[in-house]
């Protein structure tokens, strides 16, 4: 069946979002038709504003509406530690923990020759510039435990170690509060590898 042009355009728009196929897209589009006009306007405005008002922090590359971002600007935070993550979402996850009070650096990706992504394509050169500032004493590498995340971590460690700054990698293994029996074999074997003396 042919949709009228305005709605097929809307469906098309929804389908550009991740995880949304044609069925969900048309369900959302028809839902929009039933919404109050004010709500629709509000929604449209927030979409545009999110895109227009948010930029990347010129220091850490985290998404922000002020530059430098609130985290970089916060003098209360420990200025000697930088936690390197792949994505802005990772910063938010870390912040939820409320245990870490250092700074961040968002790479926005991981090194992957297969996808044509080299060290200069993610924010590594910027990180090095930041490290020249003598305040920073430790870099915590919190890239994902995937092959690319791991390679990026190893690359960073090679790059930074000669400067005398301490480089650490976050641990991986069993989730806390989970039962051992429910962990998959691979996670379990990683946890065994990383065991430590009590």
């Amino acid at each position, binding site marked *: 069946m042919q949709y009228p042009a305005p709605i097929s355009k809307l469906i098309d728009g929804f389908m550009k979002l991740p995880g949304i196929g044609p069925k969900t897209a048309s369900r959302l589009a028809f839902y929009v038709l039933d919404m109050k006009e004010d709500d629709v306007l509000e929604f449209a405005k927030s979409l545009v504003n999110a895109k227009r008002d948010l930029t990347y922090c010129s220091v850490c590359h985290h998404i922000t509406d002020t530059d430098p971002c609130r985290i970089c600007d916060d003098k209360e935070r420990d200025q000697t530690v930088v936690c390197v993550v792949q994505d802005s979402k990772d910063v938010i996850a870390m912040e939820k923990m409320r245990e870490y009070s250092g700074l961040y650096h968002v790479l926005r990706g991981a090194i992957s020759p297969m996808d044509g992504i080299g060290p200069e394509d993610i924010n590594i050169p910027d990180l090095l510039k930041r490290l020249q500032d003598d305040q920073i004493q430790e870099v915590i590498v919190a890239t994902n435990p995937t092959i690319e995340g791991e390679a990026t971590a190893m690359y960073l460690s*090679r*790059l930074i170690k000669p400067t005398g700054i301490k480089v650490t990698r976050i641990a991986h293994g069993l989730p806390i509060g989970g039962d051992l029996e429910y962990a998959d*074999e691979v996670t379990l074997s990683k946890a065994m590898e990383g065991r430590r003396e009590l």
Partner: protein
Amino acid sequence: MHIDTLYLKQFRNYKQMGLDVDNTINLILGENAQGKTNMMEAVYVLAFAKSHRTSKDKELIQWEEDFARIEAEISRKTGPLSLEVIISSRGKKTKVNGLEQRKLSEYIGALNVVMFAPEDLNLVKGGPQLRRRFIDMEIGQISPVYLHNLTLYQRVLKQRNQLLKNMFPVPDHEQEMMLDVLTDQLARAAAQVIVRRFSFLRMLAPWSQDIHRQISREKEELSLTYVPTAEVSEGMDLSMIEEKVKEKLMQNRQNEIRRGVTLSGPHRDELSLCINNKEVQTFGSQGQQRTAALSLKLAEIELINDNIGEYPILLLDDVLSELDNHRQSHLLHAIEGKVQTFVTATGVNGVEHQTLKKASTYYAEAGTLRQVK
């Protein structure tokens, strides 16, 4: 273990087919292109979630349909299990007792299958990739961790090969450093794979030696040797192997950059088979090569039993007629009464062994199977 029921939907030439299996030995007869091998393939896919014949899952789906489904009820020592593999154009799903499995490595191993098909007769004389595949498939069945390590290795290898290609002709400093990183990462993954392969062959060797001795009427000694591309040997520990693999990669570095490909590591290692200290690949007769292949497959069945405490399902696809009487009897004798087996053949001629007289016989015709009483 035992398959009790099998159900296929839109799989290859089977529109819909249900089968109750009540016998240990099951003989499937039929003309060519009627669905004998497809049925064997279905059992194989149920075990490994991929085909032995094609890497394109789409080919498994019946023409003009959008999915294929294989279901089976199986009995294991630990109890009954229902298994399901669904293949559609959007990917595949696996279920155990109705629960979808998040990772393939969690599914594989639910059903253990050993297949012996005509192409396996080439296991000995064919290219080294066949023997590597044999090792990888078999360890994968008993060790999900191995499967994970192997996938890891292959992915790092791809990244490294791509980087090597990018580095030609003049590598920059960043690329050199990235190559160091990927070399470390590759060596670490390689060590895990190599250690497991060594220990697998150490366990397989006595079984295959024994079986081969019997089939050759005490005349031949079969030995298996892992021939690595790096200077590693069996007694070394993980970190030592990692070190040696890295050393080899470092030696080849310039050459690798020139050729744009990783030249050493588990993906180039070889399994060498000797009979009475002579390499079978090059010096063995056709008969010796076949016997050695058969010995390896039979050893594998015993090894799985040894590891998991029960025998796997055996699929003999069109191979009985390829073996002479003596080897046939040996094979059938070895499995009699303990290994549930599916055998295909075009006719009963050439497969008249005593064991097969007790088999349930099915007849495959144009995508149907009917039991012959």
